[in-house]
């Protein structure tokens, strides 16, 4: 799905993609109850306030769970990454070594255009051990 399509269907998401383009991961944070949520919504799904601001995440996280898809031309790793700020987000771990994406592995965000998208998506790289 092209960025233009994403923005036409999800206009509230523009600041997120603008930041991704510049290498920054934004998380929606409720200015009233001070809680994060994921995926981004224009309201807080905890207290239902519409007072949402964008908070720049540290980009650090740990692998909550992961799976290596082997039935593909190039195997790839799908993972749920628990961010330092708390939310668990779906992403890819960019590594040829699945053992580096095991549960508990520490990872850091990066940004890449994936699989025909023209917008940069947050992905994660294993930290050097």
């Amino acid at each position, binding site marked *: *799905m092209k960025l233009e*399509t*994403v923005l036409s*269907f*999800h206009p509230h*998401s523009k600041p997120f993609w603008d930041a991704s383009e510049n290498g920054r991961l934004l998380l929606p944070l409720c200015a009233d109850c001070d809680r*994060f*949520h*994921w*995926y*981004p*919504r224009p309201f807080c*799904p*905890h207290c239902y306030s519409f007072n949402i601001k964008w908070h720049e995440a540290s980009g650090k996280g740990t692998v*909550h*769970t*992961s*799976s*290596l*898809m*082997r*039935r*593909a031309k190039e195997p*790839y790793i*799908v*993972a*749920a990454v628990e961010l330092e700020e*708390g*939310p*668990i*987000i*779906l*992403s*890819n771990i960019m590594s040829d070594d*699945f053992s580096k994406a095991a*549960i508990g592995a520490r990872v850091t965000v990066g940004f890449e255009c*994936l*699989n025909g*998208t023209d917008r940069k*998506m947050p992905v994660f790289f294993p930290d050097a051990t």
Partner: protein
Amino acid sequence: MTIKRKAFVVGAFEHPTRHCPDKSTAQLHAECAIGALADAGLSPKDVDGYFGARDIPGPNASWLVDYLGLNLTHIDCTDTGGCSYLIHISHAAQAIAAGKCKVALITLAGRPKSEGMATGTAPRDGEPDRPDVPWESPYRNTNATQYGMMAARHMHQYGTTPEQLAWVRVAASTHAQYNEHAMYRNVLTVEDILNSPVIADPLHRLDCCVISDGGGALVLTTESIARSLNKPMIPVLGCGETINTQKSGWPDFVTTGAVVSGPTAFAEAGVSIQDIKYASVYDNFTIMVIAQLEDLGFCAKGEGGRFVQDGNLISGTGSLPWNTDGGGLCNNHPQNRGGITKAIEAVRQLRGEAHPKVQVPNCDIALACGPGGVIGTGHGHATVILGRE
């Protein structure tokens, strides 16, 4: 108002086909509908309530209802993925109890095999207006990777092993050998499953369900009409349904919606785990059976792997006879939606019409449950408890 004993399952039909490129989806619906009504001793002219989901051809149910020529006073197109048809049992019982209809027809049909669908391994974009899609679809998550992540997390938290997952498939294959319509009838060993290629770590190919064409249908009616038919009396005792969400960023990869739908159904039925003689538990992937059995209360959370091992789900030897038709893992998975076949096998067991090799003696209370959609994302779940009088 409770729906306990307000509606009775009088017709059940599972389409024998597993691959039918020569028939339309609408024709399969019609064959299932007519088959289930004939089983009940009724005809489409008797139907006044229809229940169906997104497998209906066309944008809504009107075209299929028109195709079948039904005269309705009640319609319900609730869609929660594969468990929709279990929810339809609940909703049909509610409608019958409220007097909205007297003869309720539920159908499911589809042809993913004929249409060459790679159900488990092909990433899908999702509808562009779906609110999660911009942040998820580019990562090429699939059913197999999502359930792989579930299995990995379950193993991490509870020490569940690939061998224990394999035991689920062993039980399904042991039952499927007696089902002449099952896609896979070879009895498998734990080693067979572990030797099959890994699709999405840690899941092997044989941890995944089949892709099949086909369908099924159920007919429910009032007590008085049921007593006029020459069929065993199978009352709906209790039902539960829910959508289990991603908890706004704190998704739980090891817990299913059965934690809600199970207790709801048990409370309505007024029965306990010990009363369940047979269970149909939706088996899209082996790990999902283990997690649902835990969440229903057949064992403690985290004990599901140990519960299913050593043949404990095999009818005649294990403590919980399960999916005695071979389930989604070996029998069929029409339209990638396993809800209705789970209920159909439960009805066979309650009627004493299961294959003699897998029939549970004195089966008077049975459970059917399953998810719709994908664990760890927003997924539906439904549990139905049926009895026999």
